[in-house]
Each structure stands twice: as C-alpha cells, then as structure tokens.
C-alpha cells in the first residue's frame, strides 16, 4: 500500500520527538556537511566542496539520535518505499518528492546462478524503479526533496541519460523548473524519455566529462539546485537506500558478495556505507562482506587502477556502448577503490560484446531486461565467478540499475529477428519443422 507524505510517520510521534529535542526541527537527523578529506564541517546548505582542499562534502548524521528512532520494527511498519529508512536519508522534514520511489524487488535468480556457476544469486532489480526505471530515482527523490527544503524553484543536472530522465520526471511532478544537460550522442530512448516531461534539455557536443565541466561552471553562476553538483552531498546519499533494501529483503543480512557497476563510483561507495550504517545501528549483525566493481572495457579507469593495485586512477576518454557508465574522470573513483580494497573486493571490465551477452543472459534466465550497465554487471559477475574470485559455493547480489527499454539501440541487431510468415497454419508448421 502506498501512502502520501502525511501518513509516512504518525504526526504525533514526530511532534513528540521534536518536543523532547530528539530531533532538530531545522536539520532533522543531519548534523553538518563534512569534508571527506580534512573533516572540516560546513552548514547544511547547497554546497559540495571544501574550500580548503576541494574535498567532497558528505552529510554527517547524529547516529545516537537515529539509534533511538530506527529499528527493524519501525522500518517494517512503514510503506514500501525507500523512505522507510528516512532517518538515514538527508532531509530535515517529511520528504516531498518521489514518495513512491524504491523498494524494488530482490529476485532470487536460480537459473542465472546455474548458468554462472554459483550456489545462490540475487538480482536487486532497479529496472522497475518508479517512476523512470533506474536507480537514479532514488538519488533524485532525495535531491529534489532537499532542494525544496532549501527554497530552490529550479533544478538541473549533468547526465549520461538516466539522471536526466529522473530529474525531468520528478521535477515535473513536483512543479519545479528543470534544466538537463546531456552529451549529444546519447541513446534516442534516453533523450525522448527526458523531453516528454517538458524540461529544458540541453544537448552538448562533447562527452559526459565535458558536460560535467560545463555544468560545474554554470552551477557557479546560476542559483539553481544542480543535483549532482551543489546538491551532491544530499543526492548521493539516496543510493544508500538500495543497500538498505537489499539487507532487509535478505532477512536483515549483509550479502557476502555485492557486485556494482561503476560510472563515478558513487553507488558502490554508498552501498558500502549502507552496510556500515545498519551494522553500526545494530539493525543487522556485523559480518564480513566483499564489494566488487564492474566497468566497461571502453571506460574502466577504476577497475584498471584496482587491477594494478593503485589507489588513484588515470582519466580516460570513454568509448563504450555502456553510455550510462561512460565517465572517464570518476569523481568517486578514489573512494570506490578504497572500498574495494578494504572489503577485499575485486574489479573487472567487459567488452561491448560481453555487455550484450550479459544483457541476454539476464533476460533469458530471469526475464529481466537491463540496460547496458546491467550487462556490465552480469558480465563482470560471470568473469569473477569463473576466475574463482567469487567462490562458487557463496551467495552474491547483483545491483541492476536501469531498464533495457532505454538502450534498445545497443542490442537491436544482436538479439535475432522475428520470423515472418503469412497467416497460414501450413506456413507456421513448416517453420516449426525447420
């Protein structure tokens, strides 16, 4: 059952908490923005970068306060959306945008497990995330809710496609003005899937890293909420909800292996953070886990660095069909490498052909049509299992982040053709006998 915002949490409970001083009316469970490099703290405004060392800012929470409010029972009573973990998401008050986002299925993938040769496999299926069929609805829901709290009426993003779709749709439903900036060579499906919601779509003659650079400059000049620039500390936290859901859906357990595709590397780091937060709060038992990173061979700065045991990456110029992962200068690459190293995870990459094969494997075994990024995740999982880096008697979760209907161009011509006959039983039976 879905609820509107007024029924997410019983109002008296909220008021009671505020009266007791358990939660600040102004900032909710957030304490400050904190530089990940030097630890300097900043007010909870639209700001993403430390002015002393350019380190990224991250939301710091009051975990003692959260521990008093959040437990399995409380979560279980709430509606089936990502907002059931609201205390660990960076909004000060009730969320106002994307209330139905998240709580996507965790599918037990027995047929794919058999094909890949592993005992147990699960698919976290964000191809059916609401409303724009990718995990980006999670981050946008948080970013736009927070943008409204901070008083913005215009939102914007630099995007490889999925983010543009999500900002366009969620801004439309929230009545916000939206600008989305995309590389000009994006898949047609992703362009139409943004235009239909009526935002300003600006197509840039350049690759995503160039779009990003331009947007950083525009964000410095215009007072808009750029979800992945000045709103980034809030936006990125939305990805944690994918990890919270995985643990809850597994019966309050951290999976032994999680395989995550990487563009900027942010999702991988936030899934790690979600596992740490639930452990710290006692919502799940602490356990040893491994987080593995997946990239396309045509854009693999993070996995290449990991394979060479480096803690820094070398930027690349992307050339891959996995356009949603085509970020040659990954902003969270350094931290993604750190997570893979600290959890004894692995990283690998797959070619365009292997990506298409991964898409087909997932579709044929589990009836799930993923976009190219999903093909990357499946392809890398296959490699890591075959190489023994993920043991065959273990259990793994694949994070599948976007829907294949958006990247039809990548697989059209590679999935066979419909067999055409006249409306005749004889022709049909002749076809069958061939």
């Amino acid at each position, binding site marked *: 059952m879905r609820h509107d915002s007024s029924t997410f949490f019983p109002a008296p409970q909220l008021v009671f908490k505020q009266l007791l001083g358990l939660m600040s009316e102004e900032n909710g469970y957030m304490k400050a923005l904190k530089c990940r490099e030097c630890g300097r703290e900043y007010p909870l405004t639209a700001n*993403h970068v430390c002015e002393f*060392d350019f380190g990224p800012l991250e939301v710091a929470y009051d975990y003692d306060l959260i521990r008093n409010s959040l437990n399995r029972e409380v979560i279980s009573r709430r509606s089936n959306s990502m907002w059931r973990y609201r205390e660990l998401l960076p909004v000060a008050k009730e969320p106002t945008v994307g209330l139905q986002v998240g709580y996507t299925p965790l599918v037990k993938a027995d047929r794919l497990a058999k094909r890949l040769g592993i005992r147990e496999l699960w698919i976290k299926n964000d191809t059916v995330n609401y409303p724009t069929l990718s995990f980006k609805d999670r981050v946008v829901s948080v970013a736009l809710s927070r943008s409204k709290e901070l008083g913005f009426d215009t939102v914007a993003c630099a995007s490889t496609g999925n983010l543009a779709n999500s900002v366009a749709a969620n801004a439309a439903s929230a009545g916000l003005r939206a600008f989305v900036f995309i590389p000009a060579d994006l898949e047609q499906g992703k362009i139409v899937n943004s235009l239909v919601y009526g935002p300003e779509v600006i197509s840039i003659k350049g690759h995503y*890293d*160039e779009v990003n650079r331009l947007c*950083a400059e525009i964000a410095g000049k215009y007072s808009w909420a750029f979800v*992945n620039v000045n709103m980034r500390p809030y936006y990125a936290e939305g990805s944690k909800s994918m990890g919270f859901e995985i643990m809850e859906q597994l019966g309050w357990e951290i999976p032994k292996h999680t395989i995550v595709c990487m563009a900027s590397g942010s999702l991988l780091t936030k899934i790690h953070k979600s596992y740490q937060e639930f452990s710290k709060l006692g919502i799940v038992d602490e356990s040893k886990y491994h987080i593995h990173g997946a990239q396309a061979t045509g854009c693999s700065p993070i996995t290449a660095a990991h394979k060479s045991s480096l803690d820094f990456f070398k930027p690349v110029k992307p050339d891959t069909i996995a356009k949603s992962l085509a970020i040659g200068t990954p902003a969270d690459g350094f931290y993604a490498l750190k997570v893979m190293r600290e959890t004894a995870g692995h990283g690998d990459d797959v070619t365009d052909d292997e990506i298409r094969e991964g898409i087909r494997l997932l579709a044929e075994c589990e009836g799930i049509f993923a976009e190219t990024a999903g093909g990357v995740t499946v392809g890398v999982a296959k490699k890591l299992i075959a190489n023994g880096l993920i043991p065959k008697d273990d259990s793994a979760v694949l994070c599948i982040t976007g829907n294949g209907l958006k990247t039809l161009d990548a697989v059209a011509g590679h999935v066979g053709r419909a067999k055409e006959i006249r409306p005749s039983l004889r022709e049909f039976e002749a076809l069958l006998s061939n």
Partner: protein
Amino acid sequence: MSTKVRIPTPLRKLTNNEELVEISAATVGEAIAELQTRYPGIQERLVDESGEIRRFVNVYVNEEDIRFLQNKDTPLKDNDEISIIPAIAGG
C-alpha cells in the same frame, strides 16, 4: 603573454570575488605560482604537500583536462583559458 583563469566559487573569497583573472605565465605550474603571488593562500588549496595538484581538483586548458596534456608542465599560449573545477558526481 596573457592567460585567463576562471576561478571556481570556493576560491573566490581569495580573489575578491573575481571570476576571471588575467595572468602571465608559460605553464600551468607557473600560472598557479602567479596566482599565489597575487592571491596569497590560493596555491595550498590547489596543490598538496608534495607539490602535486590535489586529487579532487580538475584543471583544464582550453577545455582539455591537463591530465591528458602535460599536467603542471602543460605550456600556455597567448589567450589560452584555464578553468579550475572541483570533481563532481556522476549522472
């Protein structure tokens, strides 16, 4: 020889809110040193203790990332434009 440097928001407190400053330098490294002379304190924001550009600072010359050029040794010509941009998230 004149090069324009686009100053990002987090550093504008040091440049009296100037967004665009003109300097004279033969390389990116010299440009940073020149900025430091003019706006004391700016160099340590951009460069770490070992003298390398900080990992979350992206520097572009005429829209090309200097990591694809010659990093701090990237030569500058008359009317080149340098942009200094914090790393930003994916999308």
